[in-house]
Structures are given as C-alpha cells and as structure tokens.
C-alpha cells in the first residue's frame, strides 16, 4: 500500500501540540524560591521582545543590555562566530558586555569525560550567572551546549534542595550571590527575536541563496520547553530557530529528511574518536543535504555543529565523497547580510569547506576583501598597531 503522503501532510497542517505533554512553567517554582530567600532572580530587562516557545509559553528575549557568555569552541576555533555576534549588536547600536569574569560552562568536558559532578557543574553555572548579575547586564549564552546544560542545571536546582545548599555554600566562599536568570537565553534566540531589526539594515541580497538548517540537539532536545517554536513556521512542529532569520533575510530554506539527526559531534568523539564524527556528519548530514536540497550553505547555531559539519568534510574526500558545502552560523550569515567584512568580521579563513563560491553568489568580492585583510595584517606585522580594532573593521 502506498504511503498516504497527502493525508499525512493534511493532518500535519492542522497540527496542535498535546497540552498534556507540556511541562509545568518552571517560573512558579523559580519565583517561589526567591520569595523564600533561596536565590535572586535576575529579571529580563524591560527592553525585551516576546517569542513563542514549544508549548506556547511566551519567552522574553532581551534586546539590551546583554552580558555575553562566550563559547570555548567558537572563540578558540571559529572566532568569526563570536565576532559576528558582537558586530551585529554594535551595528544595531545596542549595549553589551564581553566579560573576562567568565569561565566555560565546562559541559563539553562533562559530556565527554564525566570528570565532574552535578554540584560542580551547577556551581560553575551559578558563578557565571552571579558574575553577570553583578554587572547588571542580562546573560546571553553563545554555545548551544552551555545553553542546554544550564537549562539542565536550572531543572536540577529547582528539584533538589540539597544541591542548592551545596552550591550556595560554594558561592558563599567566593563571595558571590545565588542568582538564577528569569530566562536562559541563547544568542540564536536573540537573533531570532531581532530578525526584523536585522533585516532593516540588510544590504546584501540573499534571495538567490538556498540554505539548509541544522538545529542543535542541545538547543531543542535538552529541556525542550525553552526552545522557540513559531506556529507560522513548520506548522509549529519544528523549532523555528535559524530558519526564521534565514527566511526573514530572504534566503530560501530547503528541507531535508535528516534534519532531526545530531551532527555527529559526540563531545569525546570529535576529539578522540573522530572516525565516528566524520562518518556521521558526512553520511547523515552533508551528503543528505546535498542530495535532497542542494543548498548553497549550511546554517546552524552551535559551536560543535559548525565545527563538526565544516571540518568533517575534508577526510570524506578520501572515501570518494564529493559533496561539499560551506558551513557557518546564522550570526555570520546575518552579519554578511548586513554588510560585514567576510574576513575582518566573519573570519571565514578559519573555516575549512570552500565558502568562496557562496560569497560570489552573494555578490561579495572575496578577493578584494582578502587583499584588504592582508593590508591590515601587514600593519600589525610592521608594528604600526598591535590589534585589529572595531574602528578598523568599520573604516
């Protein structure tokens, strides 16, 4: 019997999420614990935008002022990712802090090696939250895993008084208050919420660019209720993160069958068992995207996903896999749309898969841009200046 595709699609068009599966709104307990003196809740600033989440609860995403919890892998290996986030915020004239009083969430190591425990992980999270609170700026989390893990930590702290007691004791020794943000906000949620303001400053036409989107596992699978789901996108059945801003900027978002699959990162696998990572990323993601959607670029919104999908493509060539796709974050894509320099801001020379045909299709002259980057680099080599500055970038 043939699969009744039309019937299935018609059912999906009228999709309604089962309210019985909706988790309770954690805010009730969050504020109750505040009333009982257990912690301080850092409120989302008044300058915020509401977005819908998976089970319909509106989530407040701050426009400004924001405190940026950076990502190890983004800063370390794909620094155009973090730079693009900051560049877009600056371009929109909004207030932010790029702090030095911030550690990694340490969750990459935890999921890879388990050389930590619930108390340590919660204490790391709450130390960083306290550091943000002390500045008065609201935390925005850059890494998908930090975001997912911090949501887990919030759930654990809400449910376990003994854990709260341990963490409070540790923070007391550091002289830091026990603070939980009203919402845990991923940077991609900020980009989603700000997509119309970003669109208003768009200078590069993206209407001939086709994209595929990889939603990060730790964004929409871990503590799923916090993730943004727009009823007008994918009929509300799939997170609208990344897809929303790509469409707003005029790009064509193409579907592919393995969208739910992980990228293959694996935490320990990407570092010490990369045969798995390479195979999964190539066979289940890049090749499938190429065959089913043939996009110009893969957009995603997490450290590990950009790294895995980008870096895994080289070795696959040895196995005759010819599919090759440029990979970047939607932050870099949005920055390019707003006229950011592909090297000084987006730092695409740190990426492995060939992105130059994409830039050409966008009408960006990468050869001239690279020559400009080299000119600036010579100034550093000659000792005329020590670093490239924000002023140089927008000169």
């Amino acid at each position, binding site marked *: 019997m043939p699969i009744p595709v039309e019937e299935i699609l018609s059912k999906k068009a009228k999709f309604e999420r089962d309210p019985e599966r909706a988790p309770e709104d954690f805010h009730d307990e969050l504020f109750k614990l505040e009333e009982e003196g257990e912690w301080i809740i850092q409120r989302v600033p008044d300058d915020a935008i509401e977005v819908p989440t998976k089970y319909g609860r509106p989530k407040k995403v701050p426009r400004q002022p924001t405190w940026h919890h*950076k990502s*190890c*892998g983004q800063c*370390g290996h794909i620094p155009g990712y973090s730079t693009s986030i*900051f*560049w877009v915020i600056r371009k929109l004239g909004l207030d932010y802090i790029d702090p030095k*009083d*911030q*550690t*990694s969430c*340490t969750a990459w*190591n935890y999921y890879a*090696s*388990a050389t*930590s*425990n*619930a108390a*340590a992980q919660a*204490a*790391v999270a709450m*130390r960083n939250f306290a550091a943000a609170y002390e500045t008065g700026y609201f935390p925005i989390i850059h890494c998908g895993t930090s975001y997912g893990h911090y949501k887990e930590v919030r*759930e*654990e702290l809400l449910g*376990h008084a*003994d*854990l709260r*007691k*341990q963490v409070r*004791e*540790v923070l007391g*020794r*550091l002289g*830091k208050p026990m603070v939980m943000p009203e919402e845990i906000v991923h940077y991609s949620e900020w980009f989603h919420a700000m997509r119309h303001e970003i669109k208003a400053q768009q200078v590069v036409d993206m209407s001939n660019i086709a994209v595929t989107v990889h939603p990060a*596992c730790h964004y929409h*699978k*871990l503590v799923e209720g916090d993730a943004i789901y727009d009823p007008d996108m994918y009929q509300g059945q799939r997170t609208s993160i990344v897809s929303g801003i790509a469409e707003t900027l005029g790009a064509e978002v193409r579907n592919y069958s393995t969208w*739910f*699959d*992980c990228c*293959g*990162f*694996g*935490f*320990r696998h990407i*570092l010490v068992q990369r045969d*798995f990572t390479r*195979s*999964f990323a190539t066979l289940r993601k890049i090749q499938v995207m190429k065959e089913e959607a043939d996009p110009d670029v893969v957009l995603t919104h997490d450290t590990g996903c950009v790294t895995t999908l980008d*870096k895994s493509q*080289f*070795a696959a060539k040895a196995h005759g896999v010819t599919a090759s796709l440029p990979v970047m974050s939607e932050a870099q894509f949005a920055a390019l749309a707003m006229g950011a320099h592909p090297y*000084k801001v987006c*730092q695409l020379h*740190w990426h*492995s898969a060939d992105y130059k045909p994409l830039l050409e299709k966008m009408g960006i002259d990468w050869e001239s841009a690279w020559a400009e*980057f080299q000119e600036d*680099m010579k100034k*550093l080599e000659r000792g005329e200046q020590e*670093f*490239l500055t924000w002023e140089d970038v927008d000169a």
Partner: protein
Amino acid sequence: MALTAHPAHKIQKGRYDDVPHEEKARLFEEVKADPRYEDYLYGCYECGICVAACPSARFYDFSPRRVAQATAREDVEQIYEQMNDDIWECSQCFSCLRCPRGNNPGGIITIMREVAINNGMATAKEALEGYTRIIYKIMGTGTQVSPDMLQPDAFPDWGPQVKEVSDQLELWRRMLPPETLHTTSTGWAIEPKTIMELYVIWHATGALDMIKDVDSNLHMILEEMMEDRLEDADYDTSPVTSNGH
C-alpha cells in the same frame, strides 16, 4: 533459542564473570544514589524510538533502549557490561529524550560514566586515553579548547587549512576585533580571580579528586598548579558539607 540467547545467560559466560556480583550491585547502587536518577528513568516501553534517533546506534553496537531496559529491570550484570562496553559510545546529544515514557537514557549514561570514573574502572581509563590535555585545559585554564590546540599533527583529517591557522595563529588572533579574543592558550582572556574561583569549585565539590584514580599524573599536576595559585588567596577549598553523592 530465545531463552539461550538471553543476555543474562550470555553474560554468565562473558568476560566479566570474574567480577563478583556484589561488586556489580555496589556500582549500580551508586548509580541509583545519584539524585538525578529518579528524574531520568520511568520504566521502558521497549518501543525503540530512542534508538531510531540515536546517532551512536547507527555506527556502534550501542542502544539507549538497552540501557533504559537494563536499569529499569535492575539487571546488574547487564548494567556492569554496559558500564564497561557501551557508555563511552554515547554521543550525549540527548536525541533519546524523544522517549514517550519520559526517560533520559543519555542522562542515565552520564551518571553511569561518573560512577565509572569515581571508581577508576579500567574501561573508563581507556576511554580517556588521549583526552588528558582536554581535562588539563578545562580544569586548569577555564576554557575547554584553545586556539593553540589547532595543530596539524593533532587534526590531520581536518585538512591543510589547520596548518595555515597554526602557522598564522598569533597574527590571526591579533586580527580579531574583540579585545578578549587575542589569546592563544585559552579561548578568551579570563581574569586571574575568575580562574581561582573555578579552582575553588573543583576542590570543594570533589570534581578534582574524581580524576585521581583514572589519571594520577594529571591529578598531581593540576593539584600542584591550583595550590600554587591559591596559596596567597584566602579561599576555603575544603569539601562542601553536604555532598549529593
């Protein structure tokens, strides 16, 4: 046929027969004692939805369903085998949270891994071979990966572009506009006080001591480094009075 293929029967003739059942039961009790355990396991329908979503199941003899089943049945023999042979294959992506029963097999595996580390199991040591530098980085410097880890001999499969980054690293880092990103040995510039606060967390929660049995040399290096830096600071690094484990 089905009876003779029962996992328990297979395991009785397996390579872990020499480990006393009591020891296996003790380890499982440690898993169950984790406060998160009751949030992660509600029984198993055996529907396999978790397996269908699992990336590791596609490339390894690995199944989150088997983990949920074994723990739900409290099959300590199978759990012991999984703690040795299976748990390190998990990708920790948490795709298995699609479970209609509300189970979190990935979370159960996180706990099983912690117990394996805490007990210095040989297979945990094997799993962490080649991983020492990462633990050093995260515990010692506060960021997990750093720009100077992009070495061509460490990542030959990432292509020639890694060598270019490595050759140009110091200059390319200075070509980053954010002031915090000019570092090469850490992901970003971190305040010394912030690092010391992280060291206090590792000490007070027992996380530092977790690696004593799996990598004694690394433990010694980290402990000495942390003691040196904390020497003149007035922090209490003793274990917190209430420990969840």
